[in-house]
Structures are given as structure tokens and as C-alpha cells.
């Protein structure tokens, strides 16, 4: 059971660890990022992950979702070969490590050719023998119960669980554990397939978000007489015609 962990959202890892505690198996964490991303992996190891893989290479810099999921998918395939067994589940946080587009989970599911279970708020059943998973997920304002075959990819909601804390000895032990580091060459990827060069999308401009300022009418005297100030504001709102039942169409 590999997990893709990102530093501000460890709920996916937590769920993988809980199911490993019930069913056995192995939890591997992967992340793509600069060498400093090792810290996130150490934290995952201290919480109980069995193995950590750091996907790092200068050529990976500037990757969009498409180029990121290519690297993650290749790494998962290599892990499968080394372990001699396919993964059952890939657990992802909803948001990616290096941005907030939330598209890595679906993109990775498409690359791996496995069903996607997105926005999962509860895992009802996980049965590796029957090759099945059953979850509740939040889809916009409704909840759905979904069932899929394993292997599958799950993206989790933060409400799924409460993340555990590592004990000091585990934190110290995690510092000693080996972390595998793979670059483009180890994954059989050419430099123009990854990072900025392998990304279909490109940022052409960026700048501060513009703001729309308004003429503000300040209603004074609220400190001395809040009731009076509130009455004045209520009158103004009524006159502005923004209250339901009041003045639609300019009344």
C-alpha cells in the first residue's frame, strides 16, 4: 500500500497506516520535490510508514500535474517490480505537494489505469482478498457510497481521520532510516519528459490580484449607541433594495 504524502495533509497516510494495522501489508510513502522534501518523508517514517522514496532531480523542477503524475506513476511501477507484487491502493491527499490544484490524484489514476475514488470521507470496507474497496465520498453537496475493484486510487478529505503524533523515539529512529532517492535516470525518463519541459502548461504572467475598492459610508456612533447605528444601517440596506421582500427592481 503505497501512499503519496504531502507535508500539510497527512490524512491519507494516517488512513493507510490504520488499514495496514488491521490487514497487514506495507505502507510506502513517495514524494516528488527538492532534496528538502526528505523532511516530509522522515515525518511519515516516524508515524509508521515502512519505506520512503524521494523523487528528486533538477530536471523535475517546474512540473505541472501532467509531468508530476508521469514521475509518480513510473516510481510506483518500479516499486512494484522491486517488491515483486502490485500495489493494492494509492492514497493521496486531496491537494498536491507543490501547488493547490488538486489534480494529481485523478491524473495519477488515469496514468495507472485504476479506478478513482475521490473526496473520500470514510472507508467502509477494504477487502484485499475479494479485491474490493467500499467508501463514502463527498461530491459537492451530496454523499455517495462507492465500490471499486483493487487496485484503486483514493483521494481523501481531511475529515476522514485525526492524524497521529509520533513519539520521540520514533522521531529519532526515523532519522536513521534509509530513504531511497530516484531521479529521471532511475525511472527511465528523458529530461524533456519531466519538469518544465515535460509540462503541457506554462505560466506566462503573474501578478498581484486586483481589488475593487468602494466608496464606504461609515456609520458612526456604534460604541456609544449600537442600537442607533444598527437602525441606521438597516434603513440604508432597505433603501438599497438588497433585502428579500424589499425593493427588488429598485423599489
Amino acid at each position, binding site marked *: 500500500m503505497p501512499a503519496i504524502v504531502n507535508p500539510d495533509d497527512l490524512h491519507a497516510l494516517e488512513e493507510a497506516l490504520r488499514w495496514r494495522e488491521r490487514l497487514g501489508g506495507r505502507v510506502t510513502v513517495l514524494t516528488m520535490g527538492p532534496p528538502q522534501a526528505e523532511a516530509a518523508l522522515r515525518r511519515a517514517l516516524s508515524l509508521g510508514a515502512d519505506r520512503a522514496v524521494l523523487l528528486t532531480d533538477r530536471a523535475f523542477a517546474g512540473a505541472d500535474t501532467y509531468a508530476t503524475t508521469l514521475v509518480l506513476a513510473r516510481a510506483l511501477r518500479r516499486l512494484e517490480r522491486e517488491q515483486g507484487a502490485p500495489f493494492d491502493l494509492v492514497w493521496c491527499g486531496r491537494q498536491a505537494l507543490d501547488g493547490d490544484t488538486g489534480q494529481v490524484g485523478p*491524473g495519477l*489514476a488515469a496514468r495507472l489505469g485504476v479506478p478513482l475514488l475521490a473526496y473520500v470521507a470514510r472507508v467502509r470496507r477494504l477487502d484485499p482478498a475479494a479485491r474490493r474497496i467500499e467508501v463514502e465520498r463527498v461530491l459537492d453537496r451530496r454523499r455517495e457510497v462507492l465500490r471499486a475493484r483493487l487496485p484503486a486510487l483514493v483521494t481523501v478529505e481531511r475529515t476522514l481521520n485525526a492524524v497521529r503524533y509520533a513519539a520521540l523515539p520514533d522521531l529519532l529512529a526515523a532519522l536513521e532510516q534509509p530513504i531511497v532517492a530516484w531521479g529521471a535516470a532511475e525511472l527511465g525518463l528523458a529530461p524533456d519528459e519531466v519538469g518544465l519541459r515535460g509540462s*503541457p502548461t506554462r505560466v506566462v*504572467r503573474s501578478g498581484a490580484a486586483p481589488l475593487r475598492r468602494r466608496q*464606504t459610508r461609515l456609520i458612526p456612533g456604534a460604541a456609544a449607541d449600537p442600537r442607533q447605528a444598527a437602525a441606521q444601517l438597516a434603513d440604508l*440596506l432597505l433603501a438599497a433594495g*438588497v433585502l428579500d421582500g424589499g425593493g427588488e427592481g429598485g423599489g
Partner: protein
Amino acid sequence: MPELDHRDVWVYVEHRGDEVHPVSWELLGVARRLADELGEEAAAVVLGHGARHLAERAFACGADRAYLVDDPVLEPYRAGAHAQVLARLVERHRPGIVLLGATGVGRELAGLVATAVGTGLTADVTELAVDRGRRLLEATRPTFGGKQLATIVCERHRPQMATVRPGVFPAPEPEPGRQGTVIPAEAGVVDPDLVAEVLEVLPADGRVDLERARVVVAGGRGLGEAGNVALLRELAEVLGGVVAGSRPAVEAGWIPREAQVGQTGKVVRPRLYVAVGISGAVQHLVGMQDAEVVVAINRDPDAPIFQVADYGIVGDLRQVVPALTEELRLRLRSLASRGATGGEPVRTGSR
């Protein structure tokens, strides 16, 4: 370099039965504009079973064509099935641009389809434009926690895909009777191993959608404690609105995450937005600045929220909010009773 002869602007129509998510119409309005600028056509993609009549509504909202796949495999909505069918349509008909709402459905579907067809995706977009000379879609999205906007292009891959936030574009005024062409298409083989089955749909919780609310009462860090959310709730109730919050109020656990307004939350454009105890960080302002009327209640007269407010009260929210609730209740009640007796329109207090 791949051939870039792809053309036309597609919108995935998100629906459940007859209920279409408003963002789909908003996007058809945008698609119409982009298609006109490019000299291309706007098309709706309707996937479902027995959903043909949605094509007519899409024409009224600006579509020239509707790709219609009518197949039981598409009902109820399952991401894996819709993704396979949409990817196949895209590969066969080669649109230049494909837009989806940045909803739960749109996000998962766009992520699956973009990767399956091997193209780029810009998520959570708030502005769309075209570079006519280069025939490129310029999609702008908030980034770095909302302090910045980044404009993103997809130069060498097609289609250019984007998910767009609900509520940032106005819905087009439907033109009844506007005609278009329905293009029926086959679903083709859907690989069941890639599809998560829907075993059960638990009912919606009946709350008003924040993005569709006419009145939003939002609280921020200045609430100070969870108990003060009740004051917002009472005010929202009198106004027929919903309660929301800024990021600090959400992080504090006072307001649920799905009710967060701002760059990392939702963008709202209600008729009335009441900001209570919200200082007005840029990340919040960009999520509410298109409200018709903005009211700010804050203890700090220098809070930036006052710069984007139409009306402001500097004061203690624990006193001002209950007083405002009471004053509004009185006025709305008398308004309702006069309305019932057919009295003259009310005009009060603007002097």
C-alpha cells in the same frame, strides 16, 4: 510538434437528472464569447440517459452544437464512465478548448480526461481570454495562497483544458428558440474495471449552496470564539441567507471548511455580503468583492475590509450584530404585513 488544427470551444454540461449545475450555463456564456473571438463554434457536451432536452437549453444559452451521448452506462454519474466517454469524444472530434466547472465532478473528471488524452489542464480558473494571433487560451488562476494571479497557457497540446470556478462568470440570459445542431454519439465500450460503482446516494443536506446564496453573513478572526457564530446565524436567518467565514475562522474550527470564502475557499457574488470581524486580507477580498452590496462590521477602523465595503460600522460585533438582527427583523416584518395588505411600496430612512 503535434498538429494543432483542433477547433471549437466545448463545455461539459454537469447535471443530475434535469438539474443542471449553474456553472455549466455560466461556462456556455464564456464559451460563446471565446468562440466568437476565435471565429469558431461553441458546443455543449451532454452525457446521460434521457437528457436530450438539456441540449435545447444549451442552445438557448449560446451553444451552436450539442454532442449528445444517450446511454444507460452514463446514469447515474460515475467519474470513470464519464471520463472514458468524454475522452473518446475529445479524441474523435478534436476540440480546441474544453471547459468544466471547478466543482467536485468537474475537478475529478477534468483530471482524468486531460491525462487520458495527454494534454494540460489549468484548474480553478477565474478569468479566461484568448490570444487571437496565436489561437491560445489564456487561463488565469489564483496562486500562492491567493495573493497572486497566474496566467497559464497550453501551447503544444490540445485540447486546452480548464476547470472554472462557479460564480465568477454571469449566467447568460437564455434566448428561447435559439437553434443548434444535436450531434448524437455512441458511448462505445466502457471498461468496467476503471469505474467505481455508485451503491447509494445519500440525500443532500438541504443547506443552501453558498455559491448560490443571495445573502451571505461571514465571520472572521474577530469573532473571537465559537459562541459568537450564533449571532451570525441569527442575522443570516432574518435575512434568508447563509453563514460563511474567512480562512482564520475556518482554521479556528468555528466555521466549516466548505463555507470558507476566499481564494482558497469559494467565490461568492450575493446581493448582500455582511463581513463580521473580518479584517479583509486580500485572499478573502477576492472571494467576495463582486457582491452587489458589502457591509463591514469591525472593531478596527483601519481594517482593510472597510475599503471594499459600501457600508461600515466600527464597533463591537457582540453588540452591533444582535442590534442589526433586531432592527432588520422589525423592518422586514412590517414590510411583509404591508405587502400583505397591498400597501404602498416602503421607502424608509434614506432621507
